[in-house]
């Protein structure tokens, strides 16, 4: 009988893990069901809602579409790995300060997505709403850019207005403004 499971070595929030998983296991299910890290949420399970967003080697991805066996060797960061002790990550703090959530189910995905989004911004990645002038970095981040760049994270409560405010505030601080 050919094997349909695999040994996966993976780093999660700085800790190394070696787990035997059925090849069908996604990173999302590995985190939640094998490692007990339930901060990452399962929404649609089809890559459409973004609730499962985690950072894979620093990049945001839908963990529901990423097979754990395919992510072997990667370093994953989840919402549990963002704070330093009692000190929240600046994006977490901005969500608290701006009341950028209601029920909170989409929030871990929103925050992980936003952290990587801001990193993409700092690397001057353009978006679909970037006009003819090149996108140069945090100084060009406006509400339209935030909404487009966060298009992969849905919020059924509709907390978008405050999420955009929270991320624009972070964008301002990235360019050295109060």
């Amino acid at each position, binding site marked *: 009988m050919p094997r349909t499971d695999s040994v996966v070595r993976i780093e999660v929030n700085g800790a190394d893990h070696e787990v035997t998983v059925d090849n069908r296991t996604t990173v999302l299910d590995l985190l939640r069901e094998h490692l007990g890290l339930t901060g990452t949420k399962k929404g649609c399970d*089809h*890559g459409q809602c973004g609730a499962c967003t985690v950072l894979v080697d620093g990049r945001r*991805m*839908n963990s529901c*579409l990423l097979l754990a066996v395919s992510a072997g060797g990667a370093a994953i960061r989840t919402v549990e790995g963002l704070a330093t002790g009692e000190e929240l990550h600046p994006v977490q703090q901005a969500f608290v300060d701006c009341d950028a959530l209601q029920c909170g189910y989409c929030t871990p995905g929103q925050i992980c997505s936003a952290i990587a989004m801001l990193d993409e911004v700092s690397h001057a990645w353009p978006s679909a709403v970037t006009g003819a002038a090149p996108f140069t970095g945090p100084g060009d981040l406006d509400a339209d850019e935030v909404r487009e760049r966060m298009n992969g994270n849905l919020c059924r409560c509709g907390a978008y207005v405050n999420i955009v405010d929270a991320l624009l505030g972070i964008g301002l601080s990235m360019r050295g403004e109060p």
Partner: protein
Amino acid sequence: MRPFRYERATDAASAVALVTADPDARFLGGGTNLVDLMKLDVERPGLLVDVSGLEPAGIEFTADSGLRIGAQVRNSDLAADPLVRERFPVLSQALLSGASGQLRNAATVGGNLLQRTRCLYFQDVTKPCNKRAPGTGCPARAGEHRDLAILGTSDACIATHPSDLAVALTALDARVSVVGVDGVRTVRLAELYRLPGAEPERDTVLQHGELIERIDVPPSSFATRSAYRKVRDRASFAFALVSVAAALDVADGAVQDVRLALGGVAPRPWRAGSAEAALRGRPATAANFVDAISAELEAAAPLPGNAFKVPLARNVVARVLEDLAEATR
């Protein structure tokens, strides 16, 4: 989901050999479409051969300013590349108009080209679908077909190809290098995708086990003046109702050369060759743009629910060409 074996490929030749030898095997790239289709039971592979780590995974420009893209390059890296944005803006714009930041980070360029249709019937295993289950019929003609094709359809299938990147690459005369058990062959993108005819289950001319290794975009003197425009039911993160990839070379008010391809309207990226031919040498005016694309769209065979795509495609093409002509004045 059916249990499956998994192999991480170390080189293209062994990956091709593994998949060729097993009709139940599939290549795995970023997995953003394949894993989803496996969850839906549309795809039921017994073996996944992971090619996402294979070389070449880079973006480079050849000595003659052609663009060479490794098939495992992630969509986000190609979209963000400064030289791609400068020399082939239509490519970057097409990629950025599709999916989400999370999906573009995972999806590979090769996988993007080989993604399957998002026709609702294809994705629902409780429904008949000639593409998924040959011979079972196509409920879309009499059913929900608002998103589906108006050009190149057959009685068996009216699905659209969902890739934005493929539309831009088709306009730019790109070619793919394909590795098979007998070696490497080159396929023009315009010939990679099949029209459905009586065999809608075959999206492309590739044989089982053939692997796209690289995409080559030939040098162009005017691709710097190119654009991608996508019209959809919501402002972001949706598939195209109609999309247009265009490049335009205008001198002294006349069209010297033009490249035009449409997405969201056909089972493959639709190269508007007759519209291009009609425009070469003609004054670059709005009226001529409308005439040329209207003639191309005379071949359209829309259904009641997607007849709106004919005037929509005409208007979007005319507008994109007007904007490109304006930008060169």
